[in-house]
């Protein structure tokens, strides 16, 4: 078991290193080899995760939290950070999701990025990401958690900036990285607050004394941990990096910015449940932010025209659900939704990638339309994903979202607000999801679609950066000159097909009314002892009402979208004109970027300039150095002026000194 656990980590790392160091040799053998290596490495990790699952199930239920330590990492002065991993149902669950989805996305990428000059680099990064994510989920103490946390941030940065010749990509990367570092710092500081009283960094050690920790420190520490979670999971107000992160290649968006990394915050809160249950104040903060995010992101999703960004805002919104869920004690619901969301959101992104391939890199919904016939497989995948997202039974998203909301409803009190908000969000979700589908696949085929229908994949004459229209240097070779679509690429098709199946049937793991509760049972050892996990069970009536309401809202949303964008194509413009203020607010993403810019970035930049241009010159150089040297040179000038050359003046000074010295002595009498 220990070997398997470490193999889960080592295989992706090995894959990454092999691609990174041996890329020249690999490419010489076959241009596809780096992709194959990467995919096989992840597949191996996936297999090991399954093995881990099996082994874990063999253990008695109360022994399913196992810690393995490799060596002392930082052990000094009471700090006890070892290189240790925690294997328990929750981590194995996460590992399975991560490796499983990653495997498919690796497979997808083997052709999607085939013509890219950074092919080997891409797989190296991608494997490194999987490694990092696994470190994150398997971490056995806070230090390793932070390490994994930051590694995924770095991997995310690398992949966002993958096409580093684009200034848009590099600035998006740095933005994502810096915001993620804010999160890292939050976690570190939160850890300090907890460590101050627990005197251990170990998870299990900390949890075992959760009830002994003072409330104030705990709440402060957990809120700081939440900052980390928000940063990674793109929750307001630390969400602005996620839409920009769409600068990365589409598989990256699918894997990192939809399926896995951004859900780390959810994982973190679920992992820290013993602490959150001791500090309800902190937990409520999480719930509230989750709700706000899900609504705000939904409204923005309604108006964004960039295909990938629509899905990105959708991701934000869905993670809002999860954060809201796990913060409110709906752990299994949140994690279940995490899994199903991973499936269908990855699917949606892959499908979007396929369309973008057909559009030769163009991502604007305004330029798309009528791909229904040209790309039937992609269309099918999109519809499956859309139905999951909208929460239409029996697709997986229906069950997971429903579980969250019914549990919230059961908790009562102010959680009713969350409950209601969740359904409002669901309506928004259905509308923007289907808006996207209708705009891309319905209507008159655009020239690219028509070209494809004629059997020819559109190829752009001049490569431009879709974000700013800048002409790309073609000699560089990334983004690659060729594009790939699922219809013509078996690996892509396989990956999408498998995901579509998973997204469709994933719900069977956890069907209400006791039909199935595989997830519940599997995760139970992790949440053993939780008041929420063991104490909150929605009544059947509430569950049923929720299911009906959810399905109805989903269908309503699809209907609205159909009405607005297919039946009456002019309606959209009319609504925009009617609610111009609101529209402007949504289009400008609630002005979060502008606010952060005005409140933080610009003052910081101004301060930097002030330091560099004024302070350094006037104070550091002028006053401190210049002042001292000034005094000394003034003294020097005085001495040299006194040294006038007049011998009588010398004698005079001598006599002055004489008189002064004598006076001193006379005063001694």
């Amino acid at each position: 078991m220990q070997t398997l656990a470490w193999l889960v980590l080592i295989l992706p790392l090995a894959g990454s290193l092999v691609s990174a160091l041996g890329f020249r040799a690999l490419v010489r053998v076959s241009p596809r080899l780096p992709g194959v290596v990467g995919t096989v490495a992840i597949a191996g990790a996936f297999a090991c995760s399954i093995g881990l699952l099996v082994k874990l199930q063999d253990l008695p239920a109360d022994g399913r939290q196992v810690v393995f330590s490799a060596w002392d990492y930082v052990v000094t002065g009471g700090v006890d950070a070892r290189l240790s991993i925690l294997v328990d149902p929750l981590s194995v669950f996460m590992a399975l999701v991560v490796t499983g989805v990653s495997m498919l996305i690796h497979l997808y990428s083997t052709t999607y990025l085939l013509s890219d000059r950074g092919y080997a680099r891409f797989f190296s990064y991608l494997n490194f990401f999987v490694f990092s994510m696994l470190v994150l989920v398997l971490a056995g103490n806070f230090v390793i958690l932070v390490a994994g946390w930051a590694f995924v941030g770095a991997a995310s940065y690398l992949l966002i900036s993958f096409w580093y010749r684009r200034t848009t990509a590099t600035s998006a990367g740095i933005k994502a990285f810096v915001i993620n570092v804010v999160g890292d710092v939050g976690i570190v500081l939160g850890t300090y607050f907890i460590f101050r009283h627990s005197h251990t960094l170990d998870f299990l050690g900390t949890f075992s004394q959760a009830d002994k920790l003072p409330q104030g420190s705990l709440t402060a520490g957990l809120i700081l941990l939440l900052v980390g979670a928000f940063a990674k999971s793109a929750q307001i107000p630390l969400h602005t990096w996620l839409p920009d992160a769409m600068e990365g290649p589409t598989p990256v968006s699918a894997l990192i910015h939809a399926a896995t990394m951004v859900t780390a915050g959810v994982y973190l809160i679920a992992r820290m449940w013993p602490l959150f249950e001791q500090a309800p104040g902190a937990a409520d903060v999480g719930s509230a932010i989750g709700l706000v995010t899900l609504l705000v992101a939904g409204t923005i999703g309604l108006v964004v025209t960039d295909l990938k960004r629509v899905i990105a805002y959708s991701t934000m919104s869905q993670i809002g659900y999860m954060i809201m869920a796990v913060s409110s004690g709906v752990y299994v619901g949140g994690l279940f939704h995490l899994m199903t969301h991973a499936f269908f959101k990855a699917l949606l992104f892959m499908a979007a990638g396929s369309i973008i391939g057909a559009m030769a890199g163009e991502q604007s919904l305004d330029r798309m339309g009528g791909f229904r016939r040209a790309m039937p497989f992609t269309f099918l995948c999109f519809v499956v994903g859309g139905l999951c997202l909208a929460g239409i039974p029996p697709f997986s998203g229906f069950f997971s979202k429903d579980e969250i909301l019914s549990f919230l409803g059961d908790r009562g009190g102010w959680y009713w607000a969350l409950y209601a908000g969740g359904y409002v969000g669901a309506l928004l979700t259905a509308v923007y999801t289907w808006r996207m589908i209708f705009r891309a696949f319905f209507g008159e085929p655009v020239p690219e679609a028509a070209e494809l229908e004629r059997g020819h994949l559109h190829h752009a004459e001049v490569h431009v950066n879709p974000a700013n229209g800048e002409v790309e240097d073609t000699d560089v070779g990334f983004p690659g000159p060729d594009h790939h679509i699922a219809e013509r690429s078996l690996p892509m098709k396989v990956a999408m097909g498998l995901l579509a199946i998973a997204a469709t049937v994933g719900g069977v793991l956890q069907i209400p009314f006791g039909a199935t509760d595989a997830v519940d049972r599997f995760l139970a050892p992790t949440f053993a002892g939780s008041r929420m996990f063991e104490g909150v069970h929605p009544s059947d009536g509430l569950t049923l009402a929720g299911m009906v309401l959810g399905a109805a809202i989903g269908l309503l949303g699809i209907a609205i979208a159909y009405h607005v964008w297919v039946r009456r194509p002019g309606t959209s413009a009319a609504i925009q004109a009617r609610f111009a203020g609101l529209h402007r607010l949504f289009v400008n993403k609630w002005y979060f970027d502008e606010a952060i810019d005005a409140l933080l970035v610009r003052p910081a930049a101004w301060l930097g300039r002030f330091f560099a241009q004024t302070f350094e010159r006037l104070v550091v150089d002028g006053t401190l150095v210049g002042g001292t040297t000034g005094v000394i040179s003034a003294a020097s000038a005085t001495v040299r002026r006194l040294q006038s050359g007049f011998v009588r003046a010398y004698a005079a000074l001598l006599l002055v000194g004489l008189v002064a010295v004598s006076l001193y002595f006379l005063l001694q009498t």
Partner: protein
Amino acid sequence: MILAAAKLHGPHIDWAALSPIVALLGGAVVALLVGLFRGRAARQVAVPLLSISAFGAAAGLSIWQWSADHDIIAGALRADELAMAINLILCAAGAATVLLSWRSVAPREAAHGEYHALVLTAAAGMAVLVGAQSLVTVFLGYELLSIPLYVLCATEMRRAGSLESGLKYLIVGSVGSATLLYGLAMLYGATGSTDFAAVAAALQAGDLLHDPLLLTGIALALVGIAFKASVAPFHQWTPDVYEGAPTPVTAFMAVATKAAAIGIGLRFFDVALIGAQPDWAPIMAVLAAVTIVVGNVGALGQSSLKRLLAYSGVAQAGYLLGGIVVSSKLGLEAAVFYLVAYLLMNLAAFAVVVARERETAFGDDIASVEGIGRSRPLLAWPMTLAMFGLAGIPATAGFVGKVYLIEALVDGDYTWLGVMIVIGSMISLGYYLKVVAAVWMRPAPEAAGGRPALAGAALDAPEDELPGPRPGGLEVTALAVAFGAGTLVLGVWPTPLFDLARHVGRSLGVL
């Protein structure tokens, strides 16, 4: 009367203990006489050789008399380790001066015999001053060193600057000696005796300690001695005289005069006036601090190396004064140690200045040493070591000396003065490093004209009388290298010098 005279018994003369001074004075007479010979060789070779032998003999005799510790010639002088140690410094400085003068202009202008006789007499005067054990001897030693130096300063008569420096030194120096004399007179008046021992005994009696006559006497004597040591504000003659005087003479003044002045300072204040230490130490410390500041800031922005070294010498005098202020064994040792270090560093620097004065047309301007790091490493290294040593960079004798001085000051509860030394050293980096930068980091300048621009040289003088650029001379380079190496070696392995200083520390019995 005649009978009385017949009964008169002259004092016992301890020729052995007196021998270093006798050697110097005898050397002066012999040099003077040999200088009368017509032969070029006699004048240009024999006279310097004789002078060096006189210095060597005096040094040897000093070592011979090292462990002497008694008054000689009716209490006029004292032979002890302090006197002998300073004799050694004087002899080293004197011999170096003779070497530096070997092919210089000054001895030719003044005539070799007279020139060297004057140098030897000045050195003898210094030896007398350092050994002085009575007020009369102090004054005589003071004048015996001053008057030959007045003349030596003015020897390069073709340069107006030389004469100017001679006259300035004479006028200001005479004011200084008149002040000293008046102070000595008052001390005599207050104590009724000219002997140090008697003065000290009178102070010990106690009721004199707050007498204005005595205190003013101390003040005036302090000023007189401080004047010779170039202590601010009595330092103003120093830069002008150092710059104007012939460079070998400047080197001699810089090293030997300072050693003599500090030596008599130690003896006069720590033996004769030790009883009044609480009265004079604070003001002397203040003077030291003022000197450190004035010397160091004055040296900034100087372009003449001699002038720069003059101000630097002022600052160093301030450091050395610290050794007197604390009136302790440690202070005495530190001062002697520092004097030796100072000798090495300054002579190395002056040797380089002399060499470059001959080799370039820039005189003693800092431009003369620009770029010698590449072209003349044997001059560049000594200069660098000398500058580092004077600045107190580790691994030089100057550093160890400063450590010793500061240690003595902290030990004597004058920590603030120790900090002043440190602050002074900081300021001093500004100009010492400038020289180092010129040596290593600036390119050699384009020669400005073919001949050394000796300031004020008569333009109508025959061509062959004016020395053109010529080799600096092997002996000058050797001297620079030797003293530079000494600076380094004693910085790394200072124990021999410490042993010497500790011997000297035993000498002033009162401490």
